[in-house]
């Protein structure tokens, strides 16, 4: 179903996505929140000093968005390489578990 080169290409794309997202992760927290905090604090965002805002609010918002983007991009990547299809055995397990899951939610 999938060739070795497909798997290599998939892994390379995955690493690229991770690299970009982790760079952003580093820049908002360690960068804006700690390293450049003094210069950013000279800028006001309403009542917030910008550096303070990044350290206590902005970085956390960005983290949530980073994971969201990762989920979307990786799902797309899975589809491109056909890795989103489960094997028949897996589908069977998933179906059974979904049924059990529903039972819990009726509670």
């Amino acid at each position, binding site marked *: *179903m*999938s*060739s070795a080169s497909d*798997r290599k290409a*998939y*892994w390379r794309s*995955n690493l690229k996505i*991770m690299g970009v*997202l*982790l760079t952003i*992760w580093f820049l908002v*927290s*360690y960068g804006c*929140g*700690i*390293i450049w*905090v*003094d210069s950013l*604090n000279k800028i006001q*965002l*309403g*009542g*917030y*000093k910008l550096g*303070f*805002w990044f*350290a*206590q*609010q902005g*970085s*956390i*918002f960005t*983290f*949530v968005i*980073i*994971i*969201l983007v*990762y*989920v979307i991009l*990786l*799902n797309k990547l*899975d589809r491109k390489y*056909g*890795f*989103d*299809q*489960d*094997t028949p*055995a*897996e589908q069977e*397990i*998933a179906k*059974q*578990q*979904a049924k*059990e*899951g529903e039972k*819990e*939610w009726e*509670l």
Partner: protein
Amino acid sequence: MGTLMIASMGTWFQEMFSNEQNIWSFGWVVFTFSIYIGIALYTRAGSSKEFYVAGGGVPPLANGLATAADWMSAASFLGMAGLISFNGYNASTYLMGWTGGYVLLALCLAPYLRKFGKFTVPDFIGDRYYSDKARVIALLCAIFISFTYIAGQMRGVGVVFSRFLNVSVEKGVLIGMAIVFCYAVLGGMKGITYTQVAQYCVLIFAFMVPAFFISIQLTGSPIPQIGLGAEIKGQEGVYLLDKLDQILVDLGFDKYTENLSEGWKLNMFATTCALMVGTAGLPHVIIRFFTVPNVRDARKSAFYALFFIAILYTTAPAVAAFSMFNMINTVSEKPYKVEKIEVTETQIATPLVAVTEVTEGVEIADGLPAWFYNWEKTGLLNWYDKNNDGKIQYYPGEVMDGKWKNAVTEDGEVARGLLGQVLPDASLKASENENELSVDRDIMVLANPEIANLHPWVIGLVAAGGLAAALSTAAGLLLVISTSVSHDLMKKVIMPEMSDKTELFYARGASIVAIAIAGYFGINPPGFVAEVVGFAFGFAAASFFPAILLGIFYKKFNKQGAITGMLVGLLSTAGYVIYFKFINPSANVAENHFLGIGPNGFGFVGMILNFVVGLAVSAMTPEPPQEIQNLVEEIRIPNNAGQAQDH
């Protein structure tokens, strides 16, 4: 004996229901606890797979909610806002550290560990590094980290009970143990997961409601994240944070929003990094990603988890600033006691005491608010009148030369001074500074609604929320401990032949023992619990994280590298912490620290050592066997599509 018990129950009831506040707290706690127990009875575990990972069938949204509750402990709910209140910008390290770790977890670990498809972290380490030695090291780390954590949770349960339900800390811990026993031992991961979903709802509601009301009171904006950056209500052009900076600087404290000292950046960088990486390496958080059906759901549930965590974590800085602002405004320079005098017409003409407001026949206002007197009795908020002016002065520095302890009279009552104030224990001496107010920073969240004068139902709700936070985390940790013992130790190392039923029996037995030990530490906390909890992150960062990360991203990394790396990371961090905290605490100042990095941040250095030594050893020793390299290839692909062709 029996009559004595009934009599003491009688007094308890009488005291308990003598005020509205207690009735509300009691009502909320009973209500939420019945929900938890109901869920636990409904979701009993039948097999060891259900016990360990809820059968691997939890929908991602539910798993995200459960992960959030699992992760947010009594420390997040009760302690973090207090930490920010008293440290301002510097406490950002906790905010970024504890949330940023989720990004690492979601991008680098969770999907691959789910694909690997076993139950625990030691499972992964043992299989990936084809070594029982590695498995046992990982197992010991997991148990150690979980125990240090859980003791703090049980203590949190005890504190909430003692303040809000009129029972002693010891009885509070026992009640907490009984509840956790119900759903952790019977329900296993399945019971825990669905209880945690309910607990997340309780704790987030309890945290947001007071924040919402106080934000409206102070700034007019209902959203605390916006309120924190807004103008103070009724004072145009005056931002709350600027005003707070100014109040603190006037009293001699550091600015709230900035760190103006020198050379702190590297330490903050290292501490934040140790917390982030430690978060990603915590066994009770990682284990949650084994409970969803597949890799895509693992990714999705990491997103949900951080989203739900972020709601509380972005509100906490607002709660912190609001409560600091309110506390100083209601307490600083206020007289402890205002004379209560019957006011007649003649007295209004010639008042005997300085008063700001006189209403006929009513006590005089502008003294301390009532909540001060409630907390005074607990020994967590106290006043020592150094200059004998009868007013409360709040300045930098500790009031006494040790931690405040209430003085007790011979018949067991708290000893009071001339004005009725609670006195410090005779063993304490007043410090040289002028500060007269002793505040335990952990009370900020619990006292916050009282400080803002909110209705008793809100105050009771906060008590239920604190319990939800502590219990959910305690349950998750108990599960890690019992799984480590029954699965990783008994099944994988000691008795590989045992049946599923026996394994389940050991799992339940181990959680009973673990609850008992945790309860013991909750009742008799060793003085260093709070400290050790902080170090647990450093240990997780220095031991687990590099081994898991390299296990996924570097397939030629072998067992020799992993084992030496874990040992070097763990021992160097432990050595540094033990030296500065227990052997030579007087040397624990920035000048003596390695590059100015304190014990809390040293896990960062330990992690780097782990990477460097591990990679060097791995390069000098034989590659891992081909089947292990194939296993690594396999976990990188989200489904089983590649498998058929290879084999």
